[in-house]
């Protein structure tokens, strides 16, 4: 099948491109990228992208798809469909499933389910340790061969500094990055939200910014010691941004991501004990949110990932302290991130870097560019299309979205994976 996308503004940072060009897709690959009007439309399906942004397919490098084990919250199929709906052509899914993805058989199961589902590419992230129990290393070589693209203990951070050191070294052996959920669980203690004035007033135990920052510093030290590739997940504090900025300035091999909720919300959202605002790391202060924006703008933070974490009402419609951490983000991530473009924090090109180019580079996966010969993963974005977040219409199985009712400007209009339109077909 042949698909011609005409008249859109192609934004591809990998090629330094930001102009109106036509894009030809053939056999699931980018076949040509030419000035407007030069590729004939006869015999081809033509998509008029006038007024739209044509970007390399967005990649959300941090999601939880809950399958296997918690299919009542999300399945690979519903998660992949939510991804496509949100403009993502690929996602990387965290290993904290049941069973934990610490073996090639679970990794292959995820890939099989993803292939069956279609919609978006799914890249499994495997567990750092067996069962994510922090005792023994899992089989990184085997996992990589089965299709794992990175290692992580997201949600169950590595407490032992020695294990973290060995994990970084062992991952380096196989050329895999470690995605670190930086959190000192001891220091978090019974914390359920950011430690600050709001936690004090609500009588909820706080998670100090230090619980994240001491581990960011530890892991950067270990990355320096081992020369391994470290990626810091969901950066949420002013201090973490400072530490990572310093680490990059002295040449430590580190990349980092943040999530839209860390630059869109603050701990004030917890007032009223709204469990949809309960997430880990917790929503921080306005000062932290400003530092996150700055870190994105100056390149300290390389990627925006949603940390899509579906939960049902069983986990969320309870007392705040008893509620699970996490919120869904696949279908709001782009809209919230585009606010940064509208507000002048990021250029459009930077946004595409953080949501496509850089995630592809960090994970070493195909895509992230519209180069001829590459996979035809494309996201068409209506930069100024207004919409109102209504979680009841989401493709995700879960509804734990704190942005319900928000008016956003800009959304994915069409998502194309391997030349196939997976969302937005008129």
């Amino acid at each position, binding site marked *: 099948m042949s698909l011609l996308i005409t008249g859109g503004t192609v934004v591809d940072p990998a090629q330094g491109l930001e102009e109106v060009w036509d894009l030809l897709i053939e056999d699931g690959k980018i076949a040509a990228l030419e000035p407007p009007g030069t590729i004939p439309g006869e015999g081809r399906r033509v998509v008029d992208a006038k007024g739209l942004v044509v970007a390399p397919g967005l990649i959300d490098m941090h999601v939880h798809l809950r399958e296997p084990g918690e299919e009542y919250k999300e399945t690979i199929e519903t998660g992949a469909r939510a991804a496509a709906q949100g403009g993502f052509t690929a996602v990387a899914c965290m290993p904290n499933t049941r069973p934990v993805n610490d073996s090639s058989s679970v990794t292959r199961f995820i890939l099989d389910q993803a292939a069956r589902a279609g919609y978006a590419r799914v890249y499994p992230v495997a567990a750092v340790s067996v069962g994510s129990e922090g005792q023994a290393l899992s089989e990184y070589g085997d996992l990589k061969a089965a299709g794992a693209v990175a290692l992580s203990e997201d949600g169950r951070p590595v407490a032992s500094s020695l294990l973290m050191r060995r994990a970084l070294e062992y991952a380096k052996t196989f050329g895999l990055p470690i995605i670190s959920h930086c959190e000192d669980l001891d220091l978090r203690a019974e914390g359920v939200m950011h430690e600050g004035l709001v936690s004090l007033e609500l009588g*909820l135990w706080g998670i100090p910014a230090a619980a994240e920052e001491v581990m960011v510093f530890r892991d950067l030290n270990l990355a320096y010691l081992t020369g391994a590739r470290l990626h810091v997940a969901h950066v949420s504090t002013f201090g973490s941004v400072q530490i990572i900025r310093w680490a990059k300035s002295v040449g430590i091999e580190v990349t980092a991501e943040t999530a839209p909720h860390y630059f869109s919300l603050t701990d004030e959202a917890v007032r009223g004990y709204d469990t949809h605002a309960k997430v880990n790391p917790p929503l921080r202060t306005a000062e932290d949110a400003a530092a996150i924006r700055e870190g994105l703008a100056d390149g300290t933070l390389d990627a925006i990932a949603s940390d899509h974490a579906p939960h049902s009402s069983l986990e969320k419609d309870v007392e705040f*302290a008893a509620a699970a951490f996490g919120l869904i983000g696949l279908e709001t991530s782009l809209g919230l991130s585009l606010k940064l473009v509208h507000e002048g924090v990021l250029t459009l090109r930077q946004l595409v870097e953080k949501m496509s180019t850089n995630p592809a580079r960090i994970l070493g996966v195909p895509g992230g560019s519209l180069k001829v010969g590459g996979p035809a993963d494309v996201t068409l974005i209506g930069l100024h299309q207004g919409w109102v977040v209504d979680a009841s219409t989401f493709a995700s199985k879960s509804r734990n979205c704190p942005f319900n009712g928000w008016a956003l400007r800009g959304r994915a209009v069409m998502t194309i994976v391997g030349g196939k339109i997976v969302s937005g077909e008129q």
Partner: protein
Amino acid sequence: MPALGAGPYLSPEGRMHMEFRRKDLLGIADLEAGEIRHILDTARSLKEISTRPIKKVPTLRGKTVVTMFYEPSTRTRMSFEIAAKRLSADTLNLTVAASSTVKGETLADTAANLEAMQPDLLVIRHQASGAPHYLARRLKCGVINAGDGIHEHPTQALLDLLTVEEAKGTLAGLKVAIIGDIAHSRVARSDIHAFTKMGSEVTLAGPATMLPPYLETMGVRTTCSLTEAVTGADVIMMLRLQLERMGQMFLSTLREYSAHFGLATRHLALAKDDVIIMHPGPMNRGVEISPEVADGAHSVILEQVTNGVAVRMALLYLLIGGEKEG
């Protein structure tokens, strides 16, 4: 609003108050100073009922008050029950051990089942901060927070205000020292809101492990010195030390805590001559407060208990005592 005696309720100052239009009482943080004033004035007028030979008025006849206590409590639960009975409401007590929560029922389900029996008011104590708010959002009946986690204990703060105002004639400009484990204290949080809203100056004291950061942003002073806190104080409120905090690294030994943060007779000389000593109970005699001080001339600890009934009568009356329009 049904009349207690006759005509609209008049405060001692002769001001006619607007109707108290809340469905719930969840915390002091939500209240305006005027509402607090109204509750205190109402409590003062109802207090007399408890001194009558027949301590009962028919005001809440036909109303049902359910108390749900997920944490052990003697004083607060009894106080609510006596308050309800003196106003002729029917009361029903649900304690956690006897309830269906041990069977794994969710708080929402328990509450929904209770509501199906059409109570007028639910009084809840729960170990989770925000649990009363959670219920109040879901239930049509009124909800009174009788203590939620480490968040608030609003009726305690109201009875504290009433007690101080009775002793001092005013709340404005008083120096109030609250001493002890502020971090874990819902009483402290409610008292901070209550006293600052009514114009008192609040100083908090305790070891730094028990004085969480950001307290100053609530409009109070903090110090790690008991001596400093009680100097010139009109009111000294000692908080109960929960003994299990030792194992949680909040303090070293009881001996040391008592030596540095226990209130003894010698401290009283530093305070105002007419200082009053308060404690929300139950006391650890010899830990945060010496028996001499607890039982001494400055102590108003039992007046607090008496006023607790009056304040709770006032709240029951204000929340379910009338037909609310709209």
